[in-house]
């Protein structure tokens, strides 16, 4: 069944929100206005958007160090996000977490994670909780190709399969763990193959094609909600920016040609082309969407920069629940 115009517009909007948030965050980071390290999601938007479009109240997401995209995709608030990146008291984590720990517990976004492989075991716990509480909720666990080599991923996958948990493992295979190409960090090509070892389906999908991700994620999530257990959805994608920041650290580990070739399959351009062909959104329409989001970005950055830093007294607050 072809996707509705509304669904396609929704996917486009989610992706563009991620793109414009990340591009601005990258600019601010390069300009030294945002402290610390940013791992940007540019290029991989179709994955977060295609999965998040199926999630609703009560569902959860576990994220990675490259987490902004996941939070934007599930409806993260730009103001609180930028304020967090700036280390301000008005940020999502009151300035204590920053980019690598950004979270929105109300949206079920259980946190970006500074530990590669930190997310999958937590996703098992959230999915266990969904089942335990007899909800219809699911957990989406985003993780990278590099993370698929951590023991924690394998332990989590085994448990999820064993307990038939309402969980989908979403592998963002962008071809690299940091600066190490996939064929130098694992002896397999398709990470989806790993699912077989844990007794659930593994599916490979074009991670630059938002519609393909949306459709595959829809099936996997429906299956999970029916109580039929997890699915591993491997999305082949690419990060357009460097591992950290935009321009990276000045060492060549991939060619400009390679980056260019992937950029030709920019997931947003691909979707916009499709939307135009279907007569759903023309160039002017896309530009209007873009301008509206840009305005929101500008407003959020201004809010963040005008926000106060946390009071030093906050330093030892919230170590424990009171």
């Amino acid at each position, binding site marked *: 069944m072809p996707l509705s115009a509304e669904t396609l517009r929704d996917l486009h909007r989610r992706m563009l929100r991620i793109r414009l948030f990340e591009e601005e965050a990258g600019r601010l980071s390069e300009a030294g206005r945002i402290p610390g390290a940013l791992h940007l999601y540019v290029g991989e938007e179709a994955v977060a958007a295609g999965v998040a479009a199926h999630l609703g109240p009560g569902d959860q997401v576990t994220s990675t160090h490259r987490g902004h995209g996941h939070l934007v995709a599930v409806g993260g608030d730009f103001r609180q996000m930028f304020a967090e990146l700036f*280390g301000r008291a008005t940020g999502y984590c009151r*300035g204590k977490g920053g980019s690598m720990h950004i979270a929105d517990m109300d949206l079920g976004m259980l946190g970006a994670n500074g530990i590669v492989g930190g997310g999958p075991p937590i996703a098992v716990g959230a999915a266990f909780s969904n089942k335990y509480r007899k909800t219809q909720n699911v957990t989406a666990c985003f993780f990278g190709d590099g993370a698929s080599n951590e023991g924690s991923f394998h332990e989590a996958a085994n448990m999820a399969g064993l307990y038939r948990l309402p969980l989908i493992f979403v592998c963002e295979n962008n071809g690299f763990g940091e600066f190490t190409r996939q064929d130098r960090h694992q002896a397999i090509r398709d990470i989806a193959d790993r699912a077989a070892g844990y007794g659930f389906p593994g599916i490979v999908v074009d991670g630059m094609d938002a519609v393909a991700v949306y459709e595959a994620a829809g099936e996997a999530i429906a299956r999970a909600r029916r109580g039929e257990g997890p699915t591993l959805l491997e999305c082949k994608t690419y990060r357009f920016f460097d591992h950290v920041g935009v321009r990276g650290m000045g060492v060549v580990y991939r060619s400009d040609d390679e980056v260019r070739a992937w950029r030709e399959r920019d997931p947003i351009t691909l979707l916009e082309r499709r939307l135009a062909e279907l007569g759903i959104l023309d160039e002017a329409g896309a530009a209007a969407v873009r301008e509206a989001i840009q305005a929101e970005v500008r407003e959020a950055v201004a809010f963040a920069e005008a926000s106060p830093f946390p009071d030093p007294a906050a*330093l*030892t607050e919230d170590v424990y629940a009171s």
Partner: protein
Amino acid sequence: MTAATAQRQLPTVMAINEALRQLMREDPNVFLAGEDVALYGSVFGFSRGLLDEFGPERVVDTPISEAALVGLGVGAAATGLRPIIDIMFMDFMGVAMDQLVNQAAKMRYMFGGKARLPLTIHTMAGAGLNLAAQHSQSLEAWFCHVPGLKVVMASGPYEAKGLLIAAVRDESPVIVINHKALLGLAGPVPEEMYEIPLGQAAVVRPGTNFTIIATGRMVHESLAAAEQLREHGIDAEVIDPRSLVPLDTETLVASLRKTHRALVVHEAVRFGGFGAEIAAQLQEAAFDHLDAPIGRVGAPFSPVPFSPALEAHYVPNADRIAGEVLRLLGRAA
């Protein structure tokens, strides 16, 4: 910074690089394994050029699999090799704790002395770069509490090279901790190989009436504090233990007998930190010489915060150290 006979200046990152290179030239059984240490030369840059010289058999990029990475070192060490295992950030030791604490540390003892583990774990600790709670910790106290592991902390390029060489030549597992904020710090480093013997503290700044014992980056903050304290008529001696296990208690006690007052400074959380062990040992050994309680400066009891506004209050600095010295002396800061 001690034994500074050499004039050549090297930043810490290059001192580590030189030590690795010389160790690998010296002994074909020495190899380096870690995440992005080969082709990329480590995210901190300390292994640049090693792949070219020694090839992929000896400079090994591994998957992101810290448990297996440390295990690779344990198994290789137990069978005759001399591994150097790099754990990119000390925080990631959490992923490999079993291999470190239950396997590497105990194998020799459990096997009645029949195993030999010349294993070096190299890692990067420390806060100050706005990298937040999972990339900024100083966790040395965890490992000091485990019999079977040795633990050293470098405070600069001279120490980084000398400690690494001593660690790799040692026959037991040694954890070598560098501080990421010190990698660019330059100082005199001899070109030839030299060891800083494990268990030998350095008096970094001689003094007469107060002892400050500091590790890692806090050595520099303590030196700055000592300068501030001069204006108050305090001539502080600053000592860098360099090696925590084994600990050179003798040098520390000798200083205390002379100055009668001491403060221990580390970047790690104060509560349960290694400073408590040093303070306890000092009072056991030299109680009669004490004119004041032994003080401790460390981080507050919280994870490392992201916001620069909070992190600045989190990491101890010269002002706080000097203030604590004055407080111990009953003077207002």
